[in-house]
């Protein structure tokens, strides 16, 4: 479609790729910066991220499956659940030098946002309060709940 359907982030960390990789794949580390989880760095492993539910929009569970694993270069998992959402999160790590500092460039792509998919549209509708209305409140509330976790 005309509209962008993926989010791309680029973040530089002044740490070796192996450390950033651990941040992405160690369940304890993931819980610290993202969400409590039962991730395992195993191809095909099914896991969940869990956070506080926000009834009736979000049951607090993101369903995932590891679909790509190439230590310490790339990692991808499905990101499903929140009201018809069927997306994919992929991470790519590259060793780079920035301003004389050696570190890791982490490129993240969250793809598959597709409001031409009736299931995803319906899910987004239920979370966002309807077509043409005050849109983002419910979704922002859900994501703020996730952000608020320590």
């Amino acid at each position, binding site marked *: 479609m005309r509209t*962008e359907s993926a*989010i791309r*982030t680029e973040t530089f960390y002044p740490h070796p790729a192996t450390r950033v990789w651990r941040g992405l794949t160690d369940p304890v580390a993931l819980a*610290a910066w993202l969400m409590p989880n039962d991730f395992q760095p195993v191809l095909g492993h099914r896991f969940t991220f869990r956070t506080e539910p926000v009834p009736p929009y979000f049951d607090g569970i993101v369903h995932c499956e590891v679909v790509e694993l190439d230590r310490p270069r790339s990692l991808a998992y499905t990101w499903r659940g929140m009201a018809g959402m069927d997306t994919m999160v992929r991470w790519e790590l590259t060793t780079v030098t920035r301003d004389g500092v050696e570190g890791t460039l982490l490129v993240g792509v969250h793809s598959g946002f597709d409001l*031409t998919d*009736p299931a995803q*549209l319906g899910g987004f*509708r239920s979370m966002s309060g309807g*077509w043409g209305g005050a849109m983002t409140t419910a979704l922002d509330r859900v994501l703020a709940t996730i952000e608020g976790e320590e």
Partner: protein
Amino acid sequence: MPTATDVYTAIADPTRRRILDLLAEDGRSVTELAEPFEMSRPAVSQHLRVLREAGLVSEQRAGRQRIYRLAPDGLREVDLWLGSYRRFWQTKLAALGEYLEATRDED
């Protein structure tokens, strides 16, 4: 203002989704839309009518022809949706940076 049901019905149909994809590239006339689908012009017109009623497509007269285009606001929900998630990941990736910094000595 179209209702949610209008839009839902409009884009649930695979042919109409392909029409939207074509219009995303450029405005087209009914004839130009009918060709790739090997459909009759009345059949295409019927789909376009549904898309227009849902607020997803606009119509513009150009001489004897009518040109159909993607309506600019029709799919703005996608942008709102992505905007929320972009903020989410920015916050999270900053938290990853803090985590890596805080655990620097644990190697």
